[in-house]
């Protein structure tokens, strides 16, 4: 157990969590008008209509895959009599499809962003940095899927090392040694993932928290009562006494 392992697998995760949570709160508090994807649909419609759903559906599937792979202990699936082979088949099958969709989607989106003049003009340095983190995490993730499944190399059961380490962080009982012994590809992917989450609150990725899921369940017309103010919605200020 080197200092490097402590740093990477204990300090970095907690720093990530701290930055992610406080950063998001800070952003919500001070930059509500900047809480946006800065949609570029106005500038280009054809490509985004295809690329955006592919990417987003893909990444949602990837999220579900991560939840299953990282949060659910191997013992639970064993208890459910899901064999290692079956689990792998499912994970690789769905994971590869989802990963491929995500990668294909993001590549198309980046291609669109680079080649459509107005869209590129509306791309900030922040966006470009974010894309590096995002694409790195996706690519490395795909690589780990390939390695873990044995399609490349010998196969690796990350549910014995990476997943318990991940859970140990949240159980406030970090077990860096588990991670230290996993494959370098998983280590790099994990670091890339943490860096992505560190960057998250400060990029357009925050829009994930305001996905308008409520629209589906909400009546079309929303009335907001003025509440306790006497006139209008502006808070009362110093000045002449109100008459009547």
């Amino acid at each position: 157990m080197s200092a490097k392992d402590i740093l990477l697998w204990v300090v970095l995760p907690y720093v990530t969590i701290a930055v992610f949570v406080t950063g998001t709160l800070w952003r919500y508090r001070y930059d509500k008008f900047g809480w946006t994807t800065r949609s570029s649909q106005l500038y280009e419609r054809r490509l985004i209509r295809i690329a955006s759903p592919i990417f987003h559906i893909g990444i949602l599937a990837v999220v579900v895959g991560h939840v299953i792979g990282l949060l659910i202990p191997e013992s639970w699936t064993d208890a459910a009599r899901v064999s290692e082979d079956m689990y792998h088949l499912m994970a690789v099958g769905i994971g590869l499809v989802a990963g491929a969709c995500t990668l294909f989607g993001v590549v198309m989106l980046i291609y669109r962003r680079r080649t459509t003049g107005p869209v590129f003009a509306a791309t900030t340095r922040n966006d470009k940095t974010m894309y590096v983190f995002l694409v790195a995490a996706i690519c490395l993730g795909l690589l780990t899927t390939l390695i873990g499944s044995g399609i490349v190399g010998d196969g690796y059961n990350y549910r014995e090392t990476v997943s318990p380490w991940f859970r140990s962080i949240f159980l406030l009982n970090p077990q860096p040694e588990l991670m230290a012994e996993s494959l370098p590809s998983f280590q790099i992917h994990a670091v890339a993932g943490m860096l992505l989450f560190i960057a998250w609150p400060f990029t357009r990725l925050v829009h994930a928290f305001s996905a308008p899921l409520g629209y589906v369940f909400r009546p079309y017309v929303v009335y907001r009562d003025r509440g306790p103010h006497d006139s209008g919605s502006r808070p009362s200020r110093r000045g002449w006494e109100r008459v009547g």
Partner: protein
Amino acid sequence: MTTVQGASSATDDFLVKAARFFTPGTVSSDLRTVTKVGGRDGDVFYRDRWSHDKVVRSTHGVNCTGSCSWKVYVKDGIITWETQQTDYPTVGPDSPEYEPRGCPRGAAFSWYTYSPTRVRYPYVRGVLLEAYRAAKAVTPDPVDAWAAVVGDPETRRRYQKARGKGGLVRASWPEVLEIIGAAHVHTAKVHGPDRIFGFSPIPAMSMASHAAGGRFISLMGGSMLSFYDWYCDLPVASPQVFGDQTDVPESADWWNASYLIMWGANVPVTRTPDAHFMAEARYRGQKVVTVSPDYADNTKFADEWMAPHPGTDGALAMAMGHVVLKEFFVERQVPRFVDYVKKYSDLPFLVTLREKQGSWVPDKFVTSADLGDEGEGAAFKTVVVDAATGRPHVPNGSLGFRFGEAGKGKWNLDLEGVDPALSLLGASGTEGVEVLLPRFDVGQEDGEGGGSHLRGVPAARLTTPAGERLVTTVFDLMLAQYGVPRDGLPGQWPAGYDDPEPYTPAWQEEITGVPAAMAERIGREFAQNAEDSGGRSMIILGAGTNHWFHSDTIYRTFLALVTLCGTQGVNGGGWAHYVGQEKCRPVTGWAQLAFGLDWQRPPRQMIGTGFWYVQTDQWRYDRLGADLLASPLGEGRFAGRSMIDTMAQSARSGWMPSYPQFDRNPLDLADEAEASGMPPADYVRDELKAGRLAFAIDDPDAEGNWPRVLTVWRANLLGSSSKGNEFFLRHLLGTSNAVRADEAPEGERPRDVTWRDEAPEGKLDLLVSIDFRMTSTGLFGDILLPAATWYEKHDLSTTDMHPYVHAFTPAIDPPWETRSDYDIFQALGRKVSDLAPGHLDVRKDLVSVPLLHDTPDEMAVPGGVVRDWRSGEVDLVPGLTAPKFVMVERDYTALGAKMSALGPLAAKAGMVTKGVPFSPTVEVEELASRNGVIPDGYAAGRPSLATDIHACETILALSGTTNGRLAVQGFRALEERTGMPLADLALEEEGKRITFPDTQARPVPVITSPEWSGSEHGGRRYTAFCINVERLKPWHTLTGRQHFFLDHDWMTEIGEGLPTFRPPLNLNRLDGDQHTGAGREVTVRYLTPHSKWSIHSEYQDNLFMLSLSRGGPEIWMSPQDAAAIGAKDNEWVEAYNRNGVVVARAIVSHRMPAGTVYMYHAKDRTVDVPKTETSGLRGGIHNSLTRLMIKPTHIVGGYAQLSFAFNYLGPTGNQRDEITVIRRRSQEVEY
């Protein structure tokens, strides 16, 4: 739609129902709404965004004729933005409204307030300031110091050569005012006040700001320079045909048209706030036709698009006229058309024929004098034939009835039961005779003169005191001219529409490229619609047809169409000319202030184009001799004469003003005249005849005859209107320039005007520019004064596009050290008063005044027969064969006091507009109460004009359009002259007085007034000449009717007595090949139309407009032309000809026809202008490739409607005939 909703509704309901217990707030029972409490904290942001310190009414104040009223918002003391006002009074039911008015250009204006281009402090060229300070250290008197600066040739040249090259340094207001004041005093004292000039255009768009400087210049004795003709926006055909500067329908009247042709006018781009009336009228069934060589924006709205080659519009209109005359006057006589032209046009009037080359040519109108009448005005009473008796008849309404005692009550269009014969064909005692008519579609190989052909007219013999004359009617001449054959007449005639002879549809196709069938059909439809709708066929005209050398000719072919079809003076019909037109509706009051008429009369007013042509020495390069234009049927009147020779004749004959006037200081001349004991006019006459005194224009390059001081405000002369920009730089300013031309070779030089071998460089001692933003004029000026913007002062605005008068109101005080134009000139006036003692004090000034329109002066040249006193054809009689010479006393020490008070002459001597007198006695007293009076000094007791609000109140009080009492008074005076009821047009508003606060509260509709020819009476839409048509008030022309025929000697000489077609000037032949041989070059027609992203140079430098457009200088060219020089879109190209060079980016667009390029008007040199390869200098402006050319018929005078008035008649600064060579240049540019 409904099925989709129905289908999804079940799903929606299910989802909402399922989630309702988890949804915060109360879901209504119908599942359509949810009510929540609170959550409105975010509202504050939006409420704050639209909370302002104040919102004021203002507008945009110089070149844009939109006159849109705007709300200007101020937040935390800062101007934030502007939005359109929406409170224009309604135009009534069944019509779209004016509001909202405004365009993206106007909405971008507030950017200027705090922009980098804002001029914040007074600036002086460093070299000049140092020289002045040094001189003042030696001679403390400012006037003496200025004399020392300009008296030293080396110093003078040093700062002149620095013009346009930076080095402007800040100075204090007291110091700059002192320098400018000293320069004015020194110039008046040493060279004469007529060497002082002021230039500021379009008073209608900010009257007080214009009047402030006009008043200063005029009271100094300097000369204001005209702008309407200089901008080539004046359609000279309007004075020629209507005797009116310009009068047109308001844009809401487009709605009333049922057939609308937009001819060279791109309404959505250049009249953006008004274009909706055109778009909306289409839904009312209006047919829209556009005529434009390129695929202009308005073509999108059009049912038909005619695309003639640039400059050939006249040919198309002649062919349409041919169809109208043939089908509606000859084959079938439409009663409405025939009645109209008999009553309201000169078509039934008799014209004599003169023998020429064994045939006959049209000569002069028959007048009462030809019938033996020796009474008052007989030579100006024109004659018709009574169809009933076959005898000549003198109808009312001609010029001969206008001024004398005997004409009272008879200056009207009432035919009193007489039916004038339109044609003499078939009448007893008539014979068919051959007439020779000039044509300009042939014989263009070696000159502009064209050829001639034979046609025939029916003629009768008329016995006159001078013997028997052959006469015919204008109508018969028109049919001959248009080539409409009738049986029994001699001559050569086209066999039909498909015979390519003048002026058939087939003939025009060869010239314009418009299919013959299309020209025929549109011509027929235009007339048919006028017949069916009672005259509601309209032609909107624009700069595309008005900026040519021969635009007067082009326009006369259009006006022939609208007049033949009886559309003039009818709502929804007539001509609608929108080219820099300015309708200063309260014109009478404005003129009093702007020319200081309340203190001194007459003012000096100079023709802009004439001034620049002479003073920038463009005449030295001009190879277009006057005789090149002469018709082959001419009398050789122009033989061997250059254009400036004709201008010199115009000046000495008193036709056009000419300042500087003589080769002597007019103050000294006045002293000499007084000393002689003779009446001043006699003294000047004798001096002129003896040759001891000469007109300055006879030797314009002599140092004593130079203009010395020029002040430019509300204008960007050197970045916008300076046609022949490089010549301005070389000769007027004396600095670096890119003139590439050689002077006219010997043999093509003036005959009468002195040619000096060494052309002067740097005539001006001082150029002052007053502006709120940095322009080329500021860059080249010696002194630059920081002005208030349009959101920082009080002023007034009107336009002809709508009938309202509304206000400018300051949103903030002028920031930094800026001041309003009004305050600047007030301060300057006081400064001159301070400096005058010992130098000027009280002086007499001998002012030469041209023969003026709308005065008895216009009867100075009977028959338009030209006689020159210098060649001994006639005696020199001031006011008849020469200018009038009038003595004016100028108390220079009281100049400041006069500036800031309303003088006594307004009430005492009265005010006259277009011949209508006004007497504002009551108003002057009222103004004393409203504005207050000056407590002491020279102007003690006079109503105050100390502030811009006082000026606005005075303008409104002294004009008929804004003061019902004066409107009624003017109509009463006109009733006396015409014998027709008129006062009822304004009677219901006699008690109405529009005050300045009224105009600040809301745009106020103006009152119908004799200052204009239309009527708003009863809330109707304004259209020109409806008073003439409905109330039988004559037009201000020779016959009192609309003219097809012009019989002035010079009109005959150049073959333009009747509407005709003249092609664009052949500059390739005139100036020679302009190719340099460097790289692949192409020669193209060079046009400078208006841009979508600027109004002149204004806004083209505005960040918003730069972002919306490509930005910077650009040349639009066709893919074919671009391919010819190997240039791709957005690449740098260089355009050059003998006048200069300009560098720009190419915009390659299929919108452009091959062989024509556009460089949008007024690309100033302040944005993205690199150095050129050709000259090595910074790349010029759009006008670096143009130059001035004078048309001699624009400078005739003293004859009926062809008489001078300021901005009414004068040579045009046309530029459309120009061609240029273009090549792709190195893409490495250096700034």
